[in-house]
């Protein structure tokens, strides 16, 4: 399962990236998608199978499940993750 985690600031997203990478998780730092938030910022794409607790421990202020792209485009879609 791929999750997108948003943080209160880009620097906290960066800190979370370092932490998760250090614990061996596959993490990608990307700009916050427009569907998720309209202001500028960075968030994390995480392969979170079995490591949800480590992800939550980094203090995200939002979690989204990553869905397949809209048909005919490359833009991923997201739905809120409880």
């Amino acid at each position, binding site marked *: 399962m791929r999750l997108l985690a948003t943080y209160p600031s*880009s620097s906290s997203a*960066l800190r979370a990236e370092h932490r998760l990478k250090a614990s061996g998780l596959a993490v*990608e*730092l*990307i*700009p916050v998608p427009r569907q998720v938030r309209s202001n500028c910022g*960075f968030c994390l794409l995480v392969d979170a199978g079995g490591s949800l607790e480590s992800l939550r421990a980094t203090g995200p202020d939002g979690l989204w499940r990553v869905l397949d792209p809209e048909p*005919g*485009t*490359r*833009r*991923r879609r997201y739905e809120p993750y409880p």
Partner: protein
Amino acid sequence: MNPTRRTLDVRSLPCPQPVILTRKAMAEGGFAALEILVDDAAARENILKFAAWARCEVDEVATEGTVTRIVLRPATPGEAAEAAPVVHAAVGAPAGAATVLLTSDGIGSASPDLARLLMRGFLYTLTECDAPPLRIILMNAGVRLALEGSDSLDNLRTLADRGVDVIACGTCLEFYKSTEILGVGRISNMYEISEHLLSGPSVVLG
């Protein structure tokens, strides 16, 4: 000879030329089917990945000995009028599409950390674009983006697989003593780079 079929022989061409030439031919159009002759396994996979991405129909993939023949059809047959814009939108505008020149591994210079973060974000965002640039040219510290260990290497590889011509400045690689660890793209020189910058719209970031 069938005038509605064009043949593209990319045998013995080094990667990523086969996929780049395929992309250019699809953008030019003017045929019902494009027959590609390829003799390199990686190039064949890249062409098929590109075909899936550009929503081409794959009519045939036939391997005989070392040569594979791939036949692609742009978009839906029988809807030529609609097919052309669909293909162009998918592969990026054909002639004069943008060249992106990156002169640093960051965007702006006030804070190096922020600059690098913005560049990473920019290259990731290009991978989600439905019409990525025709080529990305890396100069000066921009070449660092394409080196082994770079945070942006995977994104540049994704773009290269889709037919974006990733070009690294040979002088710059040599200056930074990094030629051996170039992880994506090909090495070129100021002559080719200048021609590209003057041949159509360019976006310069660095």
